[in-house]
């Protein structure tokens, strides 16, 4: 891994330091679900990226699953009363 100084001198157009990147990575780590369980010890950035990828994939799967359930529920339930219930609950 090249040193911090040489990299910031090489890339004259982008002044992005390693600290900024590690700051962003730690913010990502805080978003992960397991971050709440642990002590927020700093994970290596590769691990953070991998867990983020897994988390995004699992969220995509959940969206697919919930879309399926919503389409089933839309078919069976009475929409007008459900709509009224939702609007009432959102406004109150």
């Amino acid at each position, binding site marked *: 891994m090249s040193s911090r100084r040489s990299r910031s001198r090489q890339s004259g157009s982008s002044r992005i330091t390693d600290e900024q990147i590690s700051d962003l990575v730690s913010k990502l780590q805080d978003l992960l679900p397991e971050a709440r369980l642990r002590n927020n010890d700093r994970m290596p950035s590769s691990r953070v990226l991998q867990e983020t990828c897994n988390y995004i994939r699992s969220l995509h799967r959940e969206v697919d699953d919930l879309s399926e359930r919503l389409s089933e529920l839309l*078919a069976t339930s009475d929409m007008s009363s459900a709509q009224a219930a939702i609007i009432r609950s959102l406004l109150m």
Partner: protein
Amino acid sequence: MDRKRTTPPPPNPNPSSPALLVTRAAASPSKAHMLAFHFLRALSRIHRVTPVRRRTRTIRRAAYSSMARAAGPRRAWSRALLGQARSRRARTLARRAVLVRRRVLTAAAPSSPAARGGGRFIAAGGETSAAAASRAALPPRQAGEPPRADALRRLVPGGDAMEYCSLLEETADYLRSLRAQVQLMQGLVDLFSCQ
């Protein structure tokens, strides 16, 4: 529908109230309201118009579209999602026009398999064929960028065109919006099942 934007909900002491599903979903109540507004509007239209067999797919697309609309054009991932939705609609219309024309012209002859639904692919959250094509040719942006960032670029919409630093920022925002969307949909499923 009322302007949910300007009416934030009063603090609700009842923990089991369904109104909390909106206020818990995002940090600021107005953002969660925008999310709910767009998604519910799409849902009611889907319920009216869309045939039953296409509903799951359409609801999933509506989820990502309303997520992108609620986030606004300031974010690269939301712009990418809205652009994907727009191009998909344009492609569908163009394909339908071509099919109609072909059916009219070759009324007697059986249509070739290539004409029928050429690749009605189901795009997941972030991928399209255009993104797949550009993915193969794109080297990593920075020398110090870890190889895992490549997988992340594929998952986050519009990730291919970003610098590594912006990718991390966009990922965080995308993750928050995804979580809020999942919470909203889960709340709706619970609401509908209790009817």
